[in-house]
């Protein structure tokens, strides 16, 4: 039994790719060893910027010989069958043995695969691992790159150490040959390091200023950064992303604390933190009151002779240069009020077919005012909503947002406060892009909700209006994100908003259809969103119509789908669904048009086209009630009678509940039909030879189906 060490050395591997590379190395190593039939123990994988290392313990020196025998066709079988068997087994016909199986002579393929030295198997596995290794981005390099067939790696691959026990596993990949030799820290150690085995690998490297275990380096960054902050009487602002990144950028991490000029603290803390973190990978610190302190923690990769004084000084200068840029922007931007900045939006095209950003702002402002005044979704001061919306995009032309686009909104909020605008207006400007990500908080302050909704709706209406819709993976204007933002705002604030009315407020009375199209899109997104919570998409599909049209209110679609999910999780629900399907199947099989068939005689191509026509309504209602009222020409069977009565009771209850959008009550009204419909199917023959009975019963089923339909479109429900 031996331990195995593999080290793949390369030029600096990006920090963000190291975790993935460790997983990939383990996956490929397992794949190779399993394919070769080599047992192995636990695998340890380490990474630094300059190496990936794998250690596994207790590998056998050789694999066990394997014998196998496979029974083939009997002697005398057609040649085709025998040849096919040989091909499948990878043997020649002469190798077949003949044995007696229950008195019948039968061919057998007997294979004896000798055991192989693990070292040889590893020598084959390593090149395969390297060739098959998948990096997020990989490259070619050097002389070999004259051909594009040359090896690809994340950065040039420079060395391989492969030792089984104390023996070298000899292999070569595109000119890189394995050996005992590796390199230590780039600056703290020069010359070769000869590794003896997996046992001395980590310690030999440590002696040469390389901590090969990434978790140990992360621990050092975490604790030493906290310590240098504490030593200065401060508290480190924890940032696990920075811990991992700094550990991925160093082989010998040394956190160092530096100070920056206190005057920079006038700049908003988010700006300072963003500058420090994104541009410089520094931690920031807080004082005992929880306020941002004028200190940063950088992580060096060396233990400098002067204790890091020169390094800290250099980093301080870089940060100072960046912060002075930031402060310059901060002060410059404030010299111009947001309303003045807003004028510059006239020069920025929003989209060639949609005018300038200033045009967009006008639309958003109008819509925000309408939302708060006419729609009362949300309730708020419409003058302030308009004001906030008018200023909401002004920060896009400020210097600070030009430099840090991720600060859009936030800077507008700050500048609004500095100008002395009402706090609610500043808040709305700051937060109107929210919610952005999946975990982002959803605004609830009315003005913010209004501006945020108006902004998202304007994107949806505008792009749908010029027929730019997301397709497949392409969504260049982030309309899916806008849709999800809209849905979450509506949900978190319990808003009841008709997209048809919103579209009319946005673009004029002729735009109701646009509202319908956007409502359809939003319903699709609602289905995606709710599927993640476990609500089936067909429940949404069953809830998308309202009074015969696409429901323009996503809140109502959602409420109905939720009630439906609730109802169908009960016995009553599943049985009623079964009854509905059965009724629908019979009606379909009989091609029973019933009442609808009569309506079809209006001459319209679509038999339901006139159902909601106000002029026709009275006629149709009369016709329907006449039909319903028509006395049966025979005495109904008890179950038939019971169903009629149940429908007489349930229909108005369900209708009234639907009218009030009380879907739970509507569903429970349906639940009262369950027993009668079950009994009806049990006891009544629909296809009675008496044509009158048959017609009446089919009508009854149609009536039952219509009653259920009125609550939700059960035909859309699968399974």
């Amino acid at each position, binding site marked *: 039994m031996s331990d195995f060490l593999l080290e793949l050395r390369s030029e*600096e591997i990006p920090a963000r790719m190291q975790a993935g590379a460790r997983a990939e190395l383990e996956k490929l190593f397992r794949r190779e060893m399993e394919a070769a039939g080599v047992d192995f123990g636990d695998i340890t994988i380490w990474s630094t910027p300059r190496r990936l290392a794998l250690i596994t313990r207790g590998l056998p020196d050789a694999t066990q010989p394997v014998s196998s025998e496979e029974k083939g066709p009997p002697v005398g079988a057609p040649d085709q069958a025998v040849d096919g068997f040989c091909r499948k087994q990878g043997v020649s016909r002469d190798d077949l043995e003949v044995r007696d199986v229950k008195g019948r002579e039968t061919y057998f393929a007997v294979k004896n695969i000798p055991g192989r030295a693990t070292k040889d198997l590893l020598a084959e596995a390593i090149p395969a691992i390297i060739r098959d290794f998948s990096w997020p981005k990989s490259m070619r390099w050097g*002389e070999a*790159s004259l051909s594009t067939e040359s090896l690809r790696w994340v950065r040039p691959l420079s060395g391989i150490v492969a030792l089984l026990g104390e023996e070298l596993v000899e292999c070569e990949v595109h000119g890189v040959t394995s050996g005992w030799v590796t390199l230590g820290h780039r600056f703290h150690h020069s010359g070769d390091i000869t590794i003896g085995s997996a046992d001395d690998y980590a310690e030999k490297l440590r002696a040469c200023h390389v901590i090969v275990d990434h978790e140990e380096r992360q621990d050092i960054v975490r604790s030493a950064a906290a310590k240098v902050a504490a030593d200065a009487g401060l508290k480190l602002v924890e940032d696990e992303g920075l811990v991992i990144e700094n550990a991925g950028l160093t082989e010998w991490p040394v956190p160092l604390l530096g100070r920056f000029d206190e005057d920079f603290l006038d700049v908003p803390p988010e700006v300072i933190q963003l500058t420090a973190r994104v541009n410089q990978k520094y931690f920031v610190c807080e004082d005992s009151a929880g306020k941002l302190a004028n200190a940063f923690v950088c992580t060096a990769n060396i233990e400098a*002779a002067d204790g890091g004084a020169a390094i800290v000084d250099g980093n301080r200068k870089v940060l100072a240069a960046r912060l002075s840029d930031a402060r310059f922007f901060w002060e410059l931007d404030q010299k111009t009020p947001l309303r003045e900045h807003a004028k510059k939006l006239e020069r920025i095209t929003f989209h060639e077919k949609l005018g300038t950003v200033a045009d967009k702002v006008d639309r958003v402002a109008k819509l925000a005012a309408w939302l708060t005044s006419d729609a009362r979704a949300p309730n708020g001061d419409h003058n302030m909503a308009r004001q906030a919306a008018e200023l909401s995009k002004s920060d896009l032309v400020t210097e600070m947002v030009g430099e840090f686009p991720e600060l859009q909104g936030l800077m507008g909020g700050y500048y609004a406060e500095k100008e002395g605008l009402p706090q609610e207006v500043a808040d709305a400007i700051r937060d109107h892009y929210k919610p952005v990500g999946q975990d982002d908080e959803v605004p609830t302050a009315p003005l913010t909700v209004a501006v945020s909704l108006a902004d998202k709706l304007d994107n949806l209406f505008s792009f749908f209006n010029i027929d730019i819709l997301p397709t497949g993976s392409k969504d260049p204007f982030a309309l899916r994100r806008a849709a999800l933002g809209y849905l979450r705002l509506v949900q978190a604030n319990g808003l009841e908003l008709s997209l048809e009315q919103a579209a009319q407020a946005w673009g004029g009375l002729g735009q109701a259809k646009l509202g319908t199209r956007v409502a359809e899109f939003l319903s699709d997104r609602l289905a995606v969103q709710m599927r993640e919570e476990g609500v089936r998409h067909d429940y949404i599909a069953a809830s998308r119509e309202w009074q015969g049209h696409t429901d323009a209110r996503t809140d109502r679609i959602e409420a109905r789908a939720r009630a439906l999910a609730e109802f169908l999780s009960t016995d009553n629900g599943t049985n009623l669904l079964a009854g509905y399907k059965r009724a629908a199947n019979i009606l379909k099989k009989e091609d029973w048009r019933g009442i609808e068939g009569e309506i079809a005689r209006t001459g319209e191509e679509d038999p339901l086209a006139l159902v909601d026509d106000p002029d026709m309504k009275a006629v149709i209602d009369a016709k329907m009630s006449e039909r319903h009222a028509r006395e049966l020409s025979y005495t109904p069977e008890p179950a038939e009678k019971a169903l009629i009565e149940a429908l007489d009771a349930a229909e108005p209850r369900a209708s009234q509940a639907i009218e009030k959008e009380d879907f739970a009550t509507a569903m429970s009204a349906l639940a009262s039909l369950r027993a009668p419909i079950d009994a009806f199917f049990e006891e009544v023959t629909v296809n009675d030879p008496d044509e009158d009975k048959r017609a009446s019963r089919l009508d009854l089923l149609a009536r039952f189906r219509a009653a259920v339909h009125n609550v939700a479109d059960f035909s859309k429900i699968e399974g």
Partner: protein
Amino acid sequence: MDNNPARDPKASFQDMILALHDFWSAQGCLILQPYDMRMGAGTFHTATTLRALGPEPWNAAFVQPCRRPTDGRYGENPNRLQHYYQYQVILKPSPANIQDLYLESLRVIGIDPLKHDIRFVEDDWESPTLGAWGLGWEVWCDGMEVTQFTYFQQMGGFDCKPVAGELTYGLERLAMYIQGVDNVYDLDFNGRGVSYGEVFLENEKQMSKWNFEVAETDPLFDLFNKAEAECRNALDADVPIAAYEQAVEASHLFNLLQARGVISVQERASYMARVRDLARGSCEKYAEKMAPAWKEKYPEWSL
């Protein structure tokens, strides 16, 4: 450098450049002069773009003055300039010890890697304009980006065969670092007391004003269109190097128009696409024109 005690790269901007020239010359690089056109980055020099194409070895180093009109600060910002210098090294194919060579060049100009924290931080490079991309790093010295280090993978839309290594040093930043000054205008230019500010401050003031406020935009638009037309004319006449120059010209004119703030976000994309078409078209034509000669010398090579 040791063999030339007269050089003092730690106290003189020009000696730092000369020390780099000495070093890279000793490594077998041609020491070229700047391209005599206005351009935004050393990468636009034909010694980089066009020479990155094709199979022939190519090793060169040169200083390239760069113009970035929007970075002008009227001489008031200690770190930002609308005109500054890049030092470019291009090594094709990329040698196995390119990182060591680079670090050695830092030692030569006075950076001690046991006193200063040198780091290779992921930074991939892409120039849609040139149809080019590469992987590499920005090299940090105590947190400051001092060099862009790139292995070119594609240029002009073609795979680089072989791959070239490109080093771009930001000379002013490096010198500020080495000389320990906080303001670029305080750099000692010649080691004899002439400051960078004496050479360039007035230039920065006037050029910032011209870039942002003065330059007449109608002629600039006109010149842009003319450069575009001339590029196509040169392409039609099968002189892609001349066409490439017009693409570089158009690129700079676009940058000036940007600084004047007369190109909207939407138009911006379309202007960039126009410049890209010119630059890529020129690179493509150049590669196609040269390909037969390259193939003759390297039969196994293909475009």
